[in-house]
């Protein structure tokens, strides 16, 4: 079937973007694409991290390996990572992985000379490339906070202790080691669709409604005091003018009066965690179907949080790019197609030609 395309045209709606956080809706595609994007953001978008440490002097309380490990976990700004080479693919440096195309050099030289404990932080790491530096977490938005930003503490030194080292940072992916993962959290959820059967809901007393609303561990439903609805003859226990009381419905009560009960509304559908608690409650109350909840199979809400190595929006774009590259890599090579053509005649025969 030449020319037939089964392509989809997904839609995106961004809700919120910050440097290291974003929330967006992805629609008109299926879970396989959403999950592929999530998996790639976590494990296959490249970043730069310290991969090799040569320690010259270390008289600190932490051993060399401990410090090397901590250095590896320091997030480095990695806008350059997508265009950088993996050191194993680099032909400029004979595979020792120490050339400018595939690595960035860092130096750290700190000695404590005072009686006060000295914090060695990520700010003490001196980079050979100004585009690849430890991520700065100083929060400019909270100016009232006067604590000076000191970066990520690597080790603390006492008087006379010294740390001197050279480190090589390389490009890598989270699949290799988690230190290369640009993602703090990447999650998606199906968008829930919640229906309230109004007729059935009306047959509940306010007490039952409250019970139903409160059965959800997250605040999905609420009782709307504004949007009141006539429910029928009820008797108010207690003084109706001072307290809402508990309306008791039914004709058994002689002194019934007309009251207005509040409606159950959906406050925040996305707070629903697919826990089924409300549905179970409805069933226990003998009113199955009073609330119906479905997951929209083609609609996803993503939250992306990064370590700061790349911006959240860039992380999503890089993930799409990486997925495209991966798809390109799994295309059939020409010699595979040729090898199959040798079967051509047999193939045509088998297909009933």
């Amino acid at each position: 079937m030449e020319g037939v395309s089964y392509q989809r045209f997904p839609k995106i709606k961004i809700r919120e973007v910050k440097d290291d956080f974003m929330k967006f809706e992805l629609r008109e595609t299926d879970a396989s694409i959403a999950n592929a994007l999530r998996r790639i953001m976590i494990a296959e978008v490249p970043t730069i991290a310290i991969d090799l440490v040569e320690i010259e002097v270390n008289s600190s309380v932490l051993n060399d390996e401990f410090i090397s490990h901590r250095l590896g976990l320091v997030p480095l700004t990695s806008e350059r990572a997508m265009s950088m080479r993996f050191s194993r693919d680099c032909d400029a440096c004979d595979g020792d992985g120490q050339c400018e195309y595939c690595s960035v050099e860092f130096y750290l030289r700190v000695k404590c000379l005072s009686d006060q404990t000295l914090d060695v932080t990520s700010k003490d790491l001196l980079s050979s490339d100004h585009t690849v530096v430890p991520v700065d977490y100083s929060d400019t938005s909270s100016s009232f906070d006067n604590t000076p930003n000191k970066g990520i503490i690597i080790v603390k030194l006492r008087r006379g202790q010294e740390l001197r080292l050279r480190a090589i940072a390389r490009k890598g992916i989270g699949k290799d080691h988690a230190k290369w993962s640009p993602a703090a959290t990447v999650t998606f959820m199906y968008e829930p669709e919640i229906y309230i059967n109004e007729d059935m809901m009306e047959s509940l007393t306010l007490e039952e409604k409250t019970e139903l609303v409160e059965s959800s561990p997250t605040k999905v439903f609420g009782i709307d005091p504004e949007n009141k609805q006539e429910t029928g003859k009820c008797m108010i226990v207690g003084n109706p003018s001072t307290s809402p009381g508990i309306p008791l419905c039914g004709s058994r009560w002689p002194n019934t009066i007309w009251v207005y009960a509040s409606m159950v509304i959906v406050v925040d559908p996305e707070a629903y965690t697919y826990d089924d608690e409300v549905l179970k409650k409805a069933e226990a109350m003998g009113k199955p179907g009073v609330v119906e909840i479905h997951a929209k199979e083609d609609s996803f809400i993503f939250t992306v949080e990064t370590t700061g190595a790349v911006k959240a929006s860039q992380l999503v774009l890089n993930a799409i790019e990486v997925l495209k590259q991966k798809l390109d890599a799994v295309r059939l090579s020409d010699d595979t197609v040729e090898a199959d053509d040798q079967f051509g005649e047999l193939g045509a025969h088998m297909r009933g030609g």
Partner: protein
Amino acid sequence: MNAPDRYERFVVPEGVKKVSYERDTKIMNAATFTVEREDHTIGNIVRMQLHRDDNVLFAGYKLPHPLQYKILLRRLSFARHASSNTVQIQTTSQSSPMQAYNQAINDLDKELDHLKSQFEGELAKHTRDY
């Protein structure tokens, strides 16, 4: 020790083909594709895309073992009306597993292009608002 290198999880060894193709000897228009050093990320999206193809009767994938870094994609395809006349036979021959596979990848690629432009458009709109 004897632990394999970490990169073995995603670097195709020399002399090994990324994708190999094997025709099924017993079933018409059926084949198995072996993709080296890939996981559920690729396996699942290709499978789901193949399911959208009306000519594909069966498409499935498996990861034989968590420590064997490859996936097997198996699919069987032919036209829905594989009865007689020439046009339909052509249709049948045109939707070989290989073509279905290529089509799925092309469609996914286009979908991602679309997704990317959508995202960039939305992002531009969003950053302008601030």
